[in-house]
């Protein structure tokens, strides 16, 4: 059976890891804070994900990198560390009517809309490696460490 599934990637996006206290960076650069763990907020094509007790990710389109890097670098604060991770992560998108089925093969989480809503995000397991999962449009964004990109691409190709 052929799935109605479109996969893109691996692709690069702008990613900053923020540890400590993001409020130290001011409110102009970041979308509003997610109010619960494993939730995200979106603003101007940027997503702000709360993924650990003191860890956030800012994900933005590739062409936002230079501007964000300059702006975040200009804000030095002892309570917040900002690290550019764009080169570390490879992003795949899954879309189409069967994208949810493909994700259920990739990932052990309950991704039903009732359990994993539009503002949910998770670091979890994707085909056995650490993966970042969030919704994008009607489909999914799946990110893994760059070194695993060929492996993930091969796994996704097997589903198609």
């Amino acid at each position, binding site marked *: 059976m052929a799935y109605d599934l479109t996969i893109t990637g691996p692709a690069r996006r702008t990613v900053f890891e923020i540890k400590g206290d993001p409020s130290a960076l001011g409110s102009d650069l970041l979308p509003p804070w997610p109010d619960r*763990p494993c939730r995200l907020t979106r603003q101007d094509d940027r997503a702000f994900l709360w993924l650990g007790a003191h860890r956030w990710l800012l994900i933005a389109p590739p062409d936002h990198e230079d501007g964000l890097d300059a702006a975040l670098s200009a804000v030095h604060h002892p309570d917040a560390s900002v690290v550019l991770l764009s080169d570390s992560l490879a992003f795949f998108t899954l879309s189409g009517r069967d994208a949810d089925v493909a994700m259920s093969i990739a990932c052990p989480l309950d991704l039903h809309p009732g359990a994993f809503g539009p503002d949910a995000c998770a670091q979890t397991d994707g085909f*056995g490696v*650490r993966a970042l999962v969030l919704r994008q449009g009607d489909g999914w964004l799946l990110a893994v460490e760059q070194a695993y990109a060929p492996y993930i691409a091969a796994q996704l190709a097997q589903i198609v």
Partner: protein
Amino acid sequence: MLLIECPFCGPRAEIEFSYGGPAATRRPDDPAQVSDADWVDWLTVPENRAGPVPERWCHAKGCGAWLTVLRDTRTHDILDVRHGA
């Protein structure tokens, strides 16, 4: 498959976690003052009780936090999960 309720991430599958050994025994403050036999006991002979046992688990594929999990070795029931040691 265990379902472990991470205090930050919520209930997650066992494959997201790494087992970090028993949590009950405290590392001797000064190993030089401990006999070889006691040191080997601490290092390599974990308590293996039939019943609730505190264990260290790292949410390695999730938030990265180290947790202390109280697991019943007879039933695999997870009785308690908390951050840290």
